[in-house]
């Protein structure tokens, strides 16, 4: 009870005290994610790569929850694990004839893939450091689901609608491209 009471009395977001449990949880998730991410790009089996991707994405959801961004974390699980990876696996299983090892991932594209990866990493790092170097996570209350809903449907209503229409256009476009008759 003492640990729990100490945690309950402590305002997690405003106090400066280091929270051991939170740091340990972060370390466990971060190490798992790094290892899975490396295995994902080094494994020669496409299905294994997709399954390692699930672990990485679950870790991302966990880190969002650690940061108090509960809604984003849950959305991460719903959209990425529940829909996108399922679609990956679905596609792999429908298109690939054989079971077992060494299927499809060829070595000759590695150089190009490495270059693209390096480029994306560089651009992302530069952009993130440039815009968020001085930013600090809000230590006042974390944004609740209701607050997120309010801001999406008031301040950001036009971008939100624009994104919706864009997604619809992509959806219809995909059907048009895929249709043969």
């Amino acid at each position: 009870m003492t640990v729990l009471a100490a945690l309950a009395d402590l305002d997690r977001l405003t106090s400066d005290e280091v929270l051991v449990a939170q740091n340990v949880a972060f370390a466990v998730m971060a190490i798992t994610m790094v290892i899975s991410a490396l295995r994902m790009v080094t494994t020669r089996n496409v299905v294994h790569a997709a399954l390692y991707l699930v672990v990485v994405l679950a870790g991302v959801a966990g880190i969002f929850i650690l940061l108090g961004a509960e809604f984003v974390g849950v959305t991460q699980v719903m959209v990425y694990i529940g829909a996108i990876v399922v679609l990956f696996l679905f596609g792999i299983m429908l298109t690939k004839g054989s079971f077992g090892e060494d299927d499809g991932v060829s070595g000759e594209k590695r150089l190009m893939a490495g270059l693209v990866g390096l480029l994306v990493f560089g651009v992302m790092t530069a952009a993130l450091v440039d815009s968020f170097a001085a930013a600090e996570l809000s230590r006042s209350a974390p944004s609740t689901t209701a607050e997120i809903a309010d801001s999406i449907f008031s301040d950001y209503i036009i971008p939100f609608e624009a994104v919706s229409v864009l997604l619809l256009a992509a959806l219809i476009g995909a059907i048009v491209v895929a249709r043969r008759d």
Partner: protein
Amino acid sequence: MSSVLTDSLTMAVELAWWQQTGIRAVVGLLAVLLPAGTLVYLFLFKMMSFMQSRLGPMEAGPYGSLQLLAEVGKFLQKEDIIPAKADRIVFKAAPFVVLISTFLLVLVIPAGPDAWFIDVDTGIFLALAVSSISVIGILMAGWASSSKYSLLGGLRAAGQLVAYELPLVLAVMGVVIQAGTLNVQEIVMAQATGEIFGWGGIGNPFIFTQFLGFAIFLVAVQAELTQPPFDMPVAESEIVTGYLTEYTGLRFLLFFIGEFATAGIFSALAATLFLGGWYVPGIDPTSDLFNVIGPAILLGKVILVAFLIFWFRFTYPRFREDQLQQLAWKVLIPLSLANIVLTGVLKVVF
């Protein structure tokens, strides 16, 4: 389990953090296994037998009530066979991925004003998100078995689960709009303190205003559980037992427990969203009494909803694959979208 219940517990026995966590883990295990066992005995063993003019299991224990233990004992003794060409690690892990989804799902269901595992803002959204993890487990099982029947079954299952997840989510939207919150505990409270045209005698269970949502939810749950009439993924006359074909012993048992535990938990979700959850009329909803009788009330409502699910299961013949997809995309999704629009308009008008 929090404030009042924990306080009264800690006053009596001062529990350390790990002890509380231990209690929660045991209660969570019970909350998954107890409804699952109840459903299997009541409906799969007895109701199905009576509907087919036979008695069902009668030998193990009084009225066959210990048959479940006998079945579990049987599965535990069997050899755990893994096909020679199977992907061993993925094959072994698949049933556990399905079980993870089931165990995460039970967390959001409250059984009393203070008797809950987690009380989070995203509540029902979290439940729908973690329920989709089981699709990955099924795809893993279908692929790793390296058998054509398993692969076909896995693909059918994934296509079906993805198609019916949409009406499931959209059916819940009506309740969320009416209650004005995603938090499951607050949805129960909104029903307990609600009024029907100014009369608050029985609260306002959302089944009256959201009957269409309730019906769509039940149909979608039936499909999510891959139960007849939606059992194309395990259609025994076409693809043996689909993604379960190569599984034996303990791992088959885990899939089996996962299916019936998920049936129990989805029934509990339906009971919580549409039938008022742990609340019964006549007692003050904030009363401590509900922390004690709430779980029993919830179990009663779970059995009521599960009765409907299993009634359909034992009554209707199997759909064809194209009929199944058409029902989801051409009937259920437009209906649930209309329900959302109607609920939104009525919410603003009243």
